[in-house]
């Protein structure tokens, strides 16, 4: 929480870090808002007794198979670091040289990160027992169905001139929406089965 507060201060107050550009401030503020929203959601879950019970049941059930494999945390951590490295390196390298080799190298970094994250997720899924795996798979499947349909509907409205959104931000929010819808479906399934 302290880290989120410090990051928000750095983004909002020009004094402590005068060299920070406006776009970097926006990025920092976006990260702060995301982390803050996750923290707020967790606090809300812990404050509501029924939600708290479901949350701890989920942790207990997931914990059952989680003790064996440390590769998962490593793979996921390296994947996230690669995404961050791509962002930082692209800001530095692309305006300077933009040689084809650098562009191709930077373009491949997210693919490597995707591969590592997918591997980590598959390893995690295989650790779960059959009921938890069913809940996990159904929640991702339903979330993918809902979010892709919502994006298609938004694209139709966009083409029809009835909706105006920034497509770059819409791409970023794809992951956020997937996670949000998946969490909602996950909680619903947990309450149904447990």
């Amino acid at each position: 929480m302290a880290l989120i507060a410090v990051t928000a201060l750095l983004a909002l107050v020009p004094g402590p870090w005068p060299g920070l550009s406006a776009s970097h401030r926006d990025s920092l503020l976006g990260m702060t808002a995301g982390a803050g929203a996750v923290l707020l959601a967790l606090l809300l879950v812990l404050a509501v007794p029924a939600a708290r019970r479901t949350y701890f049941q989920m942790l207990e059930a997931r914990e059952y198979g989680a003790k064996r494999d440390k590769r998962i945390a490593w793979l996921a951590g390296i994947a996230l670091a690669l995404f961050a490295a791509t962002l930082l390196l692209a800001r530095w390298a692309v305006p300077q040289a933009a040689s084809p080799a650098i562009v191709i190298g930077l373009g491949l970094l997210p693919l490597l990160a995707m591969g590592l994250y997918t591997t980590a997720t598959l390893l995690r899924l295989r650790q779960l027992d059959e009921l938890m795996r069913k809940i996990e798979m159904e929640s991702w499947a339903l979330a993918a169905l809902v979010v892709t349909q919502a994006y298609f509907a938004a694209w139709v409205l966009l083409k029809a001139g009835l909706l105006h959104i920034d497509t770059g931000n819409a791409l970023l929010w794809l992951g956020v929406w997937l996670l949000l819808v998946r969490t909602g479906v996950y909680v619903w399934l947990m309450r149904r089965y447990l």
Partner: protein
Amino acid sequence: MNSRVRELRQAQGWSQATLGQRLGVSRQTINAIETGKYDPSLPLAFQIARLFGEAIEAIFLFEP
């Protein structure tokens, strides 16, 4: 699907967690099977039947 898993488990004096450990699944999965909210996979049903020394159809009661 109804089952006799709770009755057989209690006859052995086992908790849901103990049975889960013996079968390699979580306590929540055992609870969901006992309350009829979740039908186990065929391999898990065979494991349960073997553990209690009964036939599958004597433990899981199918009602169409």
